[in-house]
């Protein structure tokens, strides 16, 4: 459903993304890993329309994403979370999830939307936090809210940017279950940046490795874990 060819992004002469190809099928769960500064978040920003590509083609369900604004891309069915959560701080959790709900292409009754919002908050484990201002949440809860908001856009493709950082082992287990559940039961494709290797290696079908803006390799978790280039990229020369 998502096809990207020759994606490039330059920031003032520095290539943050250089000739990257990417392809995702419906319901797949793909991990995106790489050392810091490899261009993972840049790739997300490009797909989600936070900025435009320097060159290359992005297609989603046969429609070109080039030059489309972030909100347009969201309505086409691509949702994202931010590495550092960006909740609407001065709004309640319920209002936070209501924003994507009222901006979907088909808007229903307010009461039905509120119901749906509460259900999704419940689903990510924020069930009793409806009326709390988002700024009052702790980091873990903010990450959950981030996820809930993304789900409320009714996505076909979900871009997750380090959702496990700062969670303890138990919480990681719950979060991974939730993500796997999304992809298997709801058929949502997931592209997932993660530094918690154990979690992503166990959950993802395939892994894409980026290094210095280029795609180093793509393969199953086993292939990636044993590839000398990947080990080299992580440990350095």
């Amino acid at each position, binding site marked *: 459903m998502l096809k990207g060819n020759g994606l490039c992004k330059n920031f003032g002469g520095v290539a943050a993304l250089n000739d990257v190809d990417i392809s995702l099928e419906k319901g797949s769960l793909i991990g995106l890993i790489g050392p810091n500064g490899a261009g993972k978040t840049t790739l997300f920003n490009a797909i*989600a*329309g*936070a900025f435009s590509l320097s060159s290359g083609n992005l297609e989603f369900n046969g429609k070109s994403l080039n030059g489309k*604004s*972030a*909100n347009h891309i*969201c*309505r086409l069915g691509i*949702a*994202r979370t*931010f590495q550092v959560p*960006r*909740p*609407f*701080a*001065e*709004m309640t959790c319920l*209002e936070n999830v*209501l*924003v*994507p709900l*009222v*901006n*979907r292409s088909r*808007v229903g009754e307010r009461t039905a939307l509120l119901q749906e919002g509460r259900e999704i908050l419940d689903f990510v484990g924020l069930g009793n936090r409806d009326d709390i201002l988002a700024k009052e949440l702790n980091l873990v809860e903010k990450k959950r809210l981030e996820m809930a*908001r*993304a789900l*409320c*856009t009714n996505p076909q493709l979900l871009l997750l940017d380090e959702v496990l950082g700062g969670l303890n082992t138990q919480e990681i287990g719950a979060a991974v279950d939730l993500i796997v559940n999304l992809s298997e039961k709801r058929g949502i494709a997931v592209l997932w940046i993660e530094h918690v290797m154990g979690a992503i290696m166990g959950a993802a079908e395939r892994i894409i490795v980026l290094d210095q803006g280029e795609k180093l390799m793509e393969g199953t978790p086993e292939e990636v874990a044993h590839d000398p280039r990947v080990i080299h990229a992580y440990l350095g020369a």
Partner: protein
Amino acid sequence: MKNTKVILACIIVGLFGILPLGLNVYQQHVMIVCLFYVMMSASWNLLAGYTGQVSFAHAAFAGIGAYTSGILAVKAGLSPWLGIPLGVLFAAVIGFGVGLLCLKMGGIYLSLTTLGVSEIFHIIINNEYEITRGTMGLQVPGLLVEYSKTGYFYIMLVTAIVSLLVIYWMIHSNIGLNFRAVQNDEKAAASLGVDVIRIRVLAFTVSSALAGLAGGVYGHYLLLITPEIPSLDQQFLVLSMTIIGGMGSFIGPIIGAFTLEILSEYIRGYGEYHVLVFGLIALSMARFAPNGVVGLVQAGWAKRSTS
């Protein structure tokens, strides 16, 4: 809860409806000015308090409304009843343009650009003396065949209620939710499907149109349209009223407008100190209680309910 609010609003409006009976001509005048500032502050708050676009051109938009209608009346003999809607339309069009112009800008850049727009407008008024009569002011016909303070009070009251209803509807609808999302975090809002461009320009257009309406009706009440209406001093009053009342709340600017206008009439008895007093109040409020009277009351309530 919702019903009590509606009943309360009806009672207040009803009281205002019979208010002129108990007021002398001067007090009626003060009430009319109050209602003008209610419209100005509430519509500025819609832009600044709900979408975070702190515009310094709001008074200028009131001026656009007033001068459009005034010039049409003087030069083309058009009735103000037609001229004011045209002024509103023109203010909306200019507001739309300024909103578009400021799209790429955030925060300070936007504020300074609107300051520039306001200044350009001022320079035009002063330079096109033959049309605008410059600082002398443009004498315009009234809205009523026979001048009556009570009549104007009702006109102003109806206009203010219509403006407030529009604003209330907006902030409590999906649009208002999007306004606040954009104010809180523009990038996050865009990633969740909010059309940030549309929302920001919409806020600018509606807020400017409402300022144009306020300015138009006010100008035809004063019968003299001067550069005072679109001045930065006026902008300062509107900003102070909103901040003292409570920015980002529906009721705040209304409270601020009434309190400060009545206070300023009271101070005026002792000389021209009212702007200074306003400034000092606004300065200490903005410094120590940035959420205004409404914020203080809310904090008081919260304290009470927890203890």
